[in-house]
């Protein structure tokens, strides 16, 4: 068990190594090549020679292999952590942050509470990099460098126990997304320019993360050391109620923007629209779960009193998001926008589970929320990936201009429809189990809000099915009307991967206790880490 905890840093080091290797690879980004061609082509190598495309394809292959290996590694350690009571923890040598009275212990932990997040990342990465593999050699190494920066930060955020480390990865995740979107995003006529979307996303996130930093520093000041994600409760108890309120508010702002909650979602649509398909899938599938992680493991666990005090206001915010997102789904013109807002609606439901977790339903609400994190992440990853595979170039279809696409993409249509059903909480699939639990927990808190939220879920489901109907069924329209060329259908392997995912949904839908039991028992009794120390 002790030796097993030593694996945890590799969850961060592996993508870091991949990042360095991708960055060191020769490419069009390389200084010398650009210097040579800069004069003639204006430095734009997007339409480079075949050799360039070949090199980029080789990078894509390498990335695919790496993400499978890394995904298997993450899946392995998360499943191990969920099965072993107490989980694992590893502490590094304390380092000074500027002065000797401020030592920070870099600690990582993994138990059944955060393992679902890591498991989600481990499952999503192979899916994303397989379905959205760069077959045309369009993306240079900088694509994989920024992707791996984001990936290592996601793993770091989910694993970090010390708050300074948590903040570090929180910021580097933003940087990874910044460069991934900025370098490889593409604007279309439905979105603004890449940069305007990017800077909005960037500033929105910082509006949340800077107050969070102040809260982290305040907790460090109160505890005299870095209290760690698991030590917030005791560190905060030393403060008076007024100070705790402010600290709570700082954290809440950070997580509300990231998730996003209703009112903090201004960055959502354009950011997803301009980012590269793989980036979009990872952003929605895993990065938004950083916010969920904070809500569940920092706010609900560290500030139970404050959560209870403001529960009603926060629940209203969640229900507003669930209903508003669903209504927006109805008004959208394009499949991707429906997905974006249905994601907003579902994430609000998830947050409702967190904020209605109190008293008797404390562990039910949080367990359900963690389960929903896992379900929502996988479903959104699949949906965004499938959406990007409809057209060559990843353009999302316009509902009114397309129709009958199923004729050309039977396999894709089948798995997309199944994923949409999963997202609509079809009984027997895992999302149903999670959503029922969330609504059950919310019902004990406030029946009326629960009623409204379920209406929202219903509307969102209807909009998604309607979207599928308009794009894939009905009379077939030509590429002139659609404005894009339909991509080839899923290969057998890709379909097989999707089927495996669907099997996972059904298995967890029929027997959710396999997932819920370890999470709930650890939530109720989080102590008892298998400790290990780095030399």
């Amino acid at each position: 068990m002790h030796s097993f905890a030593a694996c945890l840093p590799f969850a961060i080091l592996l993508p870091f190594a991949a990042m360095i290797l991708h960055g060191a690879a020769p490419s069009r980004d390389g200084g010398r090549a650009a210097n040579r061609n800069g004069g003639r082509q204006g430095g734009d190598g997007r339409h480079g020679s075949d050799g360039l495309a070949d090199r980029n394809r080789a990078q894509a292959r390498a990335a695919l292999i790496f993400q499978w290996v890394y995904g298997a590694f993450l899946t392995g350690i998360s499943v191990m952590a969920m099965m072993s009571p107490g989980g694992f923890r590893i502490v590094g040598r304390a380092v000074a942050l500027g002065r000797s009275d401020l030592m920070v212990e870099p600690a990582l932990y993994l138990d059944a509470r955060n393992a679902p997040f890591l498991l989600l990342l481990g499952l999503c990465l192979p899916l994303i990099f397989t379905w959205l593999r760069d077959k045309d050699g369009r993306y240079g190494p900088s694509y994989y460098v920024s992707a791996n920066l984001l990936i290592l930060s996601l793993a770091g955020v989910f694993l970090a126990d010390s708050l300074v480390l948590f903040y570090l990865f929180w910021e580097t995740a933003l940087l990874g997304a910044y460069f991934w979107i900025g370098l490889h995003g593409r604007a279309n006529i439905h979105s603004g320019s890449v940069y305007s979307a990017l800077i909005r996303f960037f500033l929105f996130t910082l509006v949340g993360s800077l107050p969070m930093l102040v809260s982290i520093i305040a907790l460090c000041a109160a505890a005299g050391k870095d209290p760690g994600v698991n030590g917030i409760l005791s560190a905060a108890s030393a403060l008076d109620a007024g100070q705790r309120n402010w600290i709570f508010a700082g954290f809440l702002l950070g997580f509300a923007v990231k998730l996003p909650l209703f009112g903090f979602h201004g960055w959502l649509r354009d950011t997803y629209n301009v980012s590269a398909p793989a980036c979009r899938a990872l952003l929605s599938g895993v990065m938004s779960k950083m916010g969920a992680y904070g809500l569940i493991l920092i706010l609900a666990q560290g500030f139970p009193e404050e959560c209870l005090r403001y529960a009603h206001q926060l629940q209203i915010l969640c229900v507003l998001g669930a209903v508003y997102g669903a209504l927006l789904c109805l008004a959208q013109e394009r499949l991707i926008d429906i997905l974006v807002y249905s994601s907003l609606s579902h994430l609000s439901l998830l947050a409702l589970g967190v904020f209605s977790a109190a008293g008797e339903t404390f562990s039910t609400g949080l367990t359900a929320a963690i389960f929903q994190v896992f379900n929502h992440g996988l479903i959104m990853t699949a949906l965004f990936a499938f959406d990007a595979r409809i057209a060559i170039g990843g353009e999302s279809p316009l509902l009114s201009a397309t129709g009958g696409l199923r004729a050309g993409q039977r396999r894709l249509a089948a798995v997309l429809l199944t994923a949409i059903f999963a997202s609509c909480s079809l009984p027997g699939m895992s999302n149903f189990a999670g959503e029922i639990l969330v609504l059950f927990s919310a019902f004990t808190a406030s029946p009326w809000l629960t009623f409204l939220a379920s209406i929202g879920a219903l509307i969102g489901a209807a909009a998604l099915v309607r979207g599928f109907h308009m794009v894939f069924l009905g009379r077939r329209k030509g590429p002139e009307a659609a404005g894009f060329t339909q991509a080839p259908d899923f290969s057998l392997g890709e379909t097989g991967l999707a089927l495996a995912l669907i099997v996972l949904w059904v298995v967890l839908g029929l027997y959710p206790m396999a997932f819920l039991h370890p999470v709930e028992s650890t939530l109720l009794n989080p102590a008892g880490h298998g400790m290990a120390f780095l030399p």
Partner: protein
Amino acid sequence: MNPYLLSQAPLILGFVFLLAVASLRPTGRESISNVIAILALCSAAIAIWKFLPEGAQYFGGAIRVTSVGKALSYLCLGLTAVALILSEDYLEKVHIHGVDWRLVVLALALGMVNLCFAGDLATLFIAYELVSIPSYVLAGFSHKDPRSNEAGMKYLLLGAFSSVLFLLGLSFVYGATGEIHLMAIHDHLARAVEAGANGDLILAKVGLGFMLGGILFKVAVAPLHSWLPDVYQGTNLASLALISSPVKVAVFGMLGMLLWGAFEPLSDVWKPVLLAGAACSAVMGNLQAIVQTNLKRLVAYSAVVNAGFILLGILVNSVPVVVFYLASYGIMTLGSWAAFMAMGTPKADVDELSDIAGLGRTQRWVALAMTLILFSYAGIPLTAGFAAKFGVVLEALKPDAYLPHWTLAVVYLSVAAGLVSFYFYFQIIRAMWLQSPSLESADRKGARWPAVFVLTLSVVVILSLGMFLRLPGM
């Protein structure tokens, strides 16, 4: 021989030696003059470490050695030495005679060291002027460049104004207390505050006000910062490396030592002033930087923002925090000038944001290093800038540190205004990484070794200060 004279001897001897070299005017001896100047600085640091015990007083208290003063003097000498390395082959490009220039730098170094050790009002003022006058000369050194003339003139006129204010303040304080030694002034003021002798105190408070006005003007704390961007823009990069880094460190250090030392009894006068300065710097520095497209002016506004944070550090009465902040700020600033030197073409320096478009493709290492320095400015973890800001805010938020609500409000304001600074630092990052190179940038030659060396050095220092190093004794 007097140990203090011994410790200053390397600088004085180096000065005299360079003067001799300069008067003989041997051409092509620039590198040798640089080596001599750097040697003089290093041996001065060693002499200070060897000969000056903490707590010693010389010349009847005119010089007083403290641990903070020693730490600051090492810092100033080290940063000056790094700036000299940076000047190695740059001065030729801006048509400056290197031997003359280094002569002025040694005089400046002498002033900074004395500023760190000043024990009475007279030494304080002399050292202050010995720092100021070479700074004006440095700013206007490229006398054929009209921008440089403007910078030098602006700096001289406004700097002279601030010196006069400072001197006026000193004379008021002397008049109020009848003392010239800083320790004696402290005791006198403490007694007066205890006895409630308002008559004396009013004069001293007015004097302190004038001094603060002068110093805050000098370090460009908002709203007294409007000259700074013009001076930065006009000054050549080598001189700027000195004016913006070691000189800032010395003057801020002096401010801290004065306020924590002699004027500690009057803290209810200077604390609100610093608080207001910090708030104004955070707001004005950040907001004015938004519309800037000139690189040097951007860094100037970031200097204003950082000045606000340093004032907060002084305000929370924490010596280690301030020294650490000054160290990291000094090296960050030098690193950014080194990066600008490395980005320049053989004929011209980089000027506008558009000049560095696509730098990530043409000069990857320089762009990476500059990105890291900007992360440090913005305060992203793992960098010195983050550790420094973290320290200031941590000190302010400590539950046992009694701070009025206003102080906390200003701390929050500074962090919130940091959001804007992220925006303008990332404008530079955007230009480097997300934009395509322009045609002219193709004839950018590889950077020369001094700039690359200093850039690498500053990256190493920024990362190690940010991650594990702590300053000795802090």
